[in-house]
């Protein structure tokens, strides 16, 4: 009998020795959360931002909470659901207000400050965060429209009709000559790892041979390809209120076409796509691919009447990017910037930090200083299940924008802010959620 009792005791002891499953007893319910806003330390001495606008977006549920900061620069949200949040903060000062706060007159009528933090955890143990607002760089040239979603796969033009439109938002002629357009590279999920930052984005400081330290993440972005507008400096003027359209293929996508392999392609529903035959520039990689010993991509159809953009970067020499054309991600996992640089060819390039050993198929991404960027837009995946971390700092784009789905004929297009003497001025607060809307793609169209 003693043996049995011993055995039973052992049996019970064994079954109680499970893994640690103490849940801690914390019942999830709404919690208070404070967001402290301050102007950036470097330029504005870290002064508190009064009456700043704070938006919390719950990345788990899509719920948003909006509040203004008090005189001490604190937005006290009394009850929000625990979860992970994207926090966006903005503040716009008129030149008079700016002068009152900082003691000098700015060169513009108003100054916008932006700040953002991604994947901020809010729970009973985390009740506050601080966001530094930086003055947004307001460009004279702006990205007006990105048509990346494409159109219906069988009835439209799939991704062949993608384009980017750049707009002169100033009151002076600006020459497109020498302007760079880059597609940025980053992680496509917010999951974290040893080679990521806390918001899930790559920690580029860990890239092989990186020497920039932590500024690799704060002072630079990384592009997988870069185009350059050709010209002698005064060859391609953009009038105030006018734009240039950069097409993947500058053809009328509403009309039947023949691919480079001779396959006829019909368009079942022309209304779903666009006519890009009057685009100002197109991306043509045929010659470049031939120089690599590759064939020309079947849909990279050249329109001789439309000048080609120059290929400024398509991967490190010997490690060319696999992209066969300027194909934008229809899901929305790209970011785009326009910038100018005198010494672009000297910009270094790196593998992403997940790469520990370089192999033949490794891809290198060119490092672009944020200080050179004129405008930029962070796109986002249309599905909240597949969100990605931001690539751009808040002074370039404080948030992100997306279409409703892929291949749905939509583009993201900048809102019209006002019209002065017949010239349309577009919204430009460097906050794409505020500046853009999603709607049917329309080259040179406007969103009122």
């Amino acid at each position, binding site marked *: *009998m003693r*043996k*049995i009792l011993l*055995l*039973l005791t052992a*049996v*019970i002891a*064994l*079954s*109680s020795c*499970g*893994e640690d*499953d103490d*849940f*801690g*007893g*914390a*019942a*999830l*319910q*709404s919690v208070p959360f404070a967001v402290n806003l301050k102007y950036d330390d470097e330029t504005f001495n870290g002064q508190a931002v009064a009456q700043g606008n704070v938006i919390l977006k*719950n*990345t*788990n*549920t*899509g*719920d948003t909470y909006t509040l203004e900061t008090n005189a001490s620069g604190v937005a006290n949200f009394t009850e929000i*659901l*625990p*979860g*992970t949040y994207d926090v966006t903060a903005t503040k716009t000062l008129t030149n008079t207000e700016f002068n009152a706060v900082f003691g000098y007159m700015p060169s513009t009528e108003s100054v916008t400050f932006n700040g953002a933090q991604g994947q901020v*955890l809010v*729970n*009973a*143990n985390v009740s506050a965060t601080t966001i530094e607002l930086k003055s947004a760089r307001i460009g004279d040239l702006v990205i007006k429209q990105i048509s990346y979603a494409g159109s219906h796969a069988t009835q439209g033009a799939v991704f062949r009709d993608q384009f980017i439109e750049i707009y002169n938002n100033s009151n002076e002629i600006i020459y497109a000559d020498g302007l760079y357009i880059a597609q940025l590279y980053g*992680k*496509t*999920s*917010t*999951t*974290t*790892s*040893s*080679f*990521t930052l806390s918001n*899930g984005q790559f920690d580029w400081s860990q890239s092989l041979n990186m020497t920039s330290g932590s500024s690799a993440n704060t002072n630079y972005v990384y592009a997988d390809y870069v185009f350059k507008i050709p010209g002698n400096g005064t060859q391609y003027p953009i009038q105030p209120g006018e734009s240039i359209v950069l097409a993947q293929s500058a053809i009328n996508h509403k009309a039947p076409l023949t691919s480079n392999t001779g396959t006829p392609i019909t368009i079942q529903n022309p209304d779903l796509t666009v006519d890009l035959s009057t685009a100002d520039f197109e991306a043509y990689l045929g010659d470049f691919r031939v120089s690599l010993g590759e064939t020309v991509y079947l849909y990279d159809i050249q329109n001789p009447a439309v000048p080609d953009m120059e290929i400024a970067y398509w991967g490190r020499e010997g490690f060319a990017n696999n992209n066969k054309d300027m194909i934008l991600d229809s899901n929305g996992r790209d970011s785009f910037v326009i910038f100018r640089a005198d010494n672009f060819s000297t910009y270094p390039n790196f593998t992403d930090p*997940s790469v520990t050993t370089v192999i033949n198929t490794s891809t290198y991404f060119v490092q672009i200083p944020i200080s050179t960027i004129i405008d930029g837009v962070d796109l986002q995946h*249309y*599905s*909240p*299940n*597949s*969100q990605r971390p931001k690539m751009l700092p808040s002074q370039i784009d404080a948030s992100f924008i997306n279409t*409703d*789905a*892929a*291949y*749905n004929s939509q583009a993201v297009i900048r809102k019209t802010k006002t019209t002065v003497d017949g010239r349309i001025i577009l919204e430009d607060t460097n906050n794409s959620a505020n500046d853009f809307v999603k709607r049917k793609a329309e080259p040179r169209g406007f969103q009122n």
Partner: protein
Amino acid sequence: MTSIKRILFFMLLVSSAVNAQLADSLFLKENSFYLPLQENLWETPLFFTTQKLADFTQTQIDFTHKNNPIKRVQSADKVTEYGFQTQGIFNIKPKLRLFGDFRYTKSIEKGIGYNLSSGRTEEQNVLAPNYFFAPKKGNWENQTYALNGGFSYEFNNHILLSALAFYENGKMFRTIDPRPQITSSNYGGEIQTGYALKNHHVFGSVGFYRNTEKLSILYVDDTQNAPVYQETFTRFSSGYGRIIFNSSYSSNITIDRNTNFGGGYQYQNNRNSFSVAYKYNKSMDDFYGRDGNGKIYVDKDLIEFKYKVVSHATKINYFFDGEKFDYKLLLKYTKDQGDNYSVAERGQNYRMNLEKITFETGLIKKENDRVLYSFEIAANYNRHKYVDLLGLTQKKLNTIEIEASLNRDVIALKKNKLNLQIYFQNYTALDEAFLFSSITNGNYFAENVIIPDHGFDVTSKLQSRLLAQHFITLPKNRTLRIFVDYATLIILDKKYEDYIANFETKNNSFFNAGISINY
């Protein structure tokens, strides 16, 4: 050992249970009255070490079709099922008994919405938290095979020992976007040991099982996985009303690790068997998401959600094995508590409490091999409580089910026997309370699942069933059984109107038919 080899080995084992019946032994397949005894044997074999049970092997094929217009939202409109089963008891020696079963099932479920998981609300009011769903209804194709077996042995020094083991393997997929594919592997075992002193037996047990489920959700048209296409957009339920986004929809792993222990006492003499048993069970269900590279594997750091269920079950059984009639009585009390845990938020938002009191009793009177009558009644009292702090949902429900059944061998010839059985079950909600308060964007899950399901739960229902079984005696002591089972479910009141306007009131029907052979 591969799965196929396991099946062949087990079938060989079961098929070897040839005729070696003990004198005056009880044949568990004689009448449905004895089915609870077989369930008890499979569960607590040590209570049967001194009871004489006849060897049998039964092999069966069957077909089932269910038409369920009256249903909870996350279960199927229609189910068609094909099954193959073989089971048996084999008394190798007076003190050593083997038993087990194998079942293969293939089913087609039609019209399941708001559910991309393997769970169904046909037999439970609320799905366990942590599952993906999309509103659009779709059809599923499922197949499972399950092996279950064990032995019991009494040593000469009166020490009792038994072991149980099982293995289940399943695969299921949906045939329309979104298209989940689920593979599951479930195995476990239990060891029981005890001591017999004259008519008294005591035992203790410990068990473990592990169920691994791998889920991947694909779209033929991936653009449909967008909020703008609400019907096909995949979301994640984390509780009962808390709906969130989850990037691991494309691939994830859930592992349920289950441990239990228990003990019991039994008094048994020639005619009477009385037993009391207790079992504690703890289930820990971990949901593993993707790592930084988008890969999925089992690692503690990848656990996103947990769900723990602690169960207590106490059971009192009495069985009288008489000369002219047999009598049985069961009293059972079970109590379950389920708690979820979200790793990112470091807290819990969902709790489930279930209490169930079961009373069953029955009498069977036989004359030689003929069942003159078998009469059974049962009552189940259930108390449910489901709370989601972030839903915000509170649901309470107290219900009672009253069951009665009667069966009789209406024809009993030398080589032919026909048994007819009628069965009724009345379901009534005695008390209920429901609260839903929206604290997030969008109430569509509550409006389309939680509230209609509560309407279903509070509505009284009556199930009626008729079972006909034809037994044909074959040479070499074999028996062929052909059976047809038909049941309907009707609603008895309109309490659903308090919660849902468009409630389907067309009757449910159930049809089951098959053939089995005992040898």
